[in-house]
């Protein structure tokens, strides 16, 4: 009787061990780097199906339990949280897998504002850099980004900023000289350049002269400059107004080579004024 009982228990244990061996399981790394090759080790015997499920991507492999499953480089490129599922005929096992961005920068998105501003504006220029790996994943681990603003006159402003949650930003001053500035952000050997145009401010001390030539009055401004001495850009409109008995003549004239000039009819005793935008210049009275 005892022998029979021992036999039954032994057979039961053997069957249970056989079933456990056939059920199988898997060993998954907690994280892998985006784009890199990796493997998942399985145990047990028999056949199963393995799924790697993420946002917008699912990988499916038929596996022979007991063998490792290999994923070649480039199988998983998008960083994020994935779920690994091992499905057999009667059981399902799930484990998490995190795909991490590559630590080396592959691309830099650089937003610089504004593209154009007057000279001498304190903290008038802002730059924000977002660091991505070569697969376009935002690198959220802290990283040093170097910002440099340089102009044609040789002035350079430079600053290093550590990224926070993948982004680094800075504010810089526009210099006193007009021109095209190069605004460069650099991280891990990757750089991105933006062009910031520093333009003259409002005209300062607008001054004109008049010379009579026959029935016409030749009006001409001195070179128009802003209060920092930068020449006003060509195309800036200068308005000449001639007021005389019962009438008025006006002309909107664009600056060319920094000077605005126009010929207007000469009227005895006329008063001539010059203005650009909201800035008034000198006044001439014709004798």
């Amino acid at each position: 009787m005892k022998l029979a009982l021992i036999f039954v228990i032994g057979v039961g244990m053997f069957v249970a061990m056989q079933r456990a061996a056939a059920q199988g399981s898997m060993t998954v790394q907690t994280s892998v780097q985006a784009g890199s090759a990796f493997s998942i080790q399985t145990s047990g015997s028999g056949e199963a199906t393995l799924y790697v499920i993420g946002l917008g991507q699912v990988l499916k492999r038929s596996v022979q339990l007991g063998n490792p499953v290999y994923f070649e480089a480039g199988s998983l490129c998008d960083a994020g949280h994935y779920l690994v599922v091992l499905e057999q005929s009667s059981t399902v096992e799930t484990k998490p897998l995190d795909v991490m961005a590559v630590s080396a920068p592959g691309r830099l998105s650089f937003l610089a504002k504004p593209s154009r501003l007057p000279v001498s504006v304190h903290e008038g220029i802002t730059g924000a850099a977002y660091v991505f790996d070569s697969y376009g994943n935002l690198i959220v681990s802290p990283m040093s980004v170097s910002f440099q603003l340089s102009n044609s006159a040789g002035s350079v402003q430079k600053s290093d900023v550590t990224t926070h949650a993948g982004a680094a930003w800075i504010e810089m001053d526009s210099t006193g000289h007009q021109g095209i500035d190069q605004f460069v952000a650099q991280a891990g050997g990757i750089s991105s350049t933006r062009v910031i145009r520093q333009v003259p401010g409002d005209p300062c001390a607008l001054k004109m002269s008049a010379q009579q030539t026959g029935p016409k009055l030749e009006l001409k401004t001195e070179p128009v400059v802003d209060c920092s001495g930068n020449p006003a850009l060509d195309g800036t409109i200068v308005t000449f107004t001639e007021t005389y008995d019962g009438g008025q003549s006006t002309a909107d004239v664009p600056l060319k080579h920094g000077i605005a000039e126009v010929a207007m009819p000469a009227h005895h005793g006329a008063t001539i004024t010059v203005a650009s935008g909201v800035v008034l210049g000198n006044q001439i009275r014709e004798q």
Partner: protein
Amino acid sequence: MKRGALLAFVLIAATVAFIVIGTVWPISTAVAFAGGERLLESSSTPEAAARNLGQEIRLKDWGKAYSSLANRSKFTEQEFVEDVTGYYPSLRTYSSLDHFEIRPLHASDSDADVEFTLDWSTVVGTLPDTRTVHVVRNGDHWEVDWPMQKKPVLPPQVIPVEYLRWDVINRGPGDDWGVQDVDGPNVRIVDMHPVQRAEGVVVLGELLNEDVLPAYVSVTATLHRKDQSAIGTESAFDRISHLLLPKQVTPFLIQFPNASLSEVSSIRMEPFSTLVSASADPVIEIDNEQLNPAPDAALTGQLINQSGQVVNVAHVLGTLYDKSGNLVWVVDQYVDRALLPQTPVSFKIPIPEDLAKKVSSQRTVVATYSFGGFL
């Protein structure tokens, strides 16, 4: 069944009868539009002669119009047509005569003067062309002595122009989101003034391009009640100069028909600007600007194109101020003739009679458009 057939017969018979009557005894207007002459009457009076000429111009019957003129030996038919429709492409070239008015000024047995106002229908509305016409008696009928405006002839010359223009390269659709675009121009409303008029609320103002680049501009206004609900939203449409060069100022006028200023609690102004390819030329001088008092209050002056390029369409905008420099009104007018280089073209923009007394000073700007023709 019989009654239906009878009704059909009556309708067919009536239709045939009306067609016959209309063909044999047509009304004069139908004849005129069909190319006939029945609208024309005998030129037995100065007014009738002028009226006949107006009808012929309206029908673009240039041959008959030309042959009816008393002074036709002084110019060709082609010159007459160009005098009426314009020597160069302009608003007038693409217009038709909507209607005309004749007002007798003086008459004797042998000659008479009439004021001949031709209202041309153009894409920007009706534009009047008023000429004083001399009419002379020739036997038993009268003929119009057409006041020919000779084609301006410029001496052959070279007008050097330092051509300055701006071109814009915007970001493309395939660019990365981080690739920055060029910023739009900075514009600022420097003056704004709502006015109650009989036709509704009018919002007047001035807009300045503060930037160093040319701007395409527009202004939109929204009237709000006390509870912040919107009464209406309108834009300046063409009562503004849409292209502003750097530091240039344009007036604008926005109309809210049937709105009442007493209802308005606040006004939200939205200036719009965008970069646009533009040229700094041509320079238009506005000469002899004058404010003429009521009656017949008007802003008058002459446009002189200082460049070598023909300006096909010119839009004159006048900003009117009171003694304190406050904005009173904005007037505008299209010039229906092309502006030739160095050739003055007059303009006369009516000012509302009730506002004329308040107006003390003005500022006039011109917006121009060229088809690209060069002399």
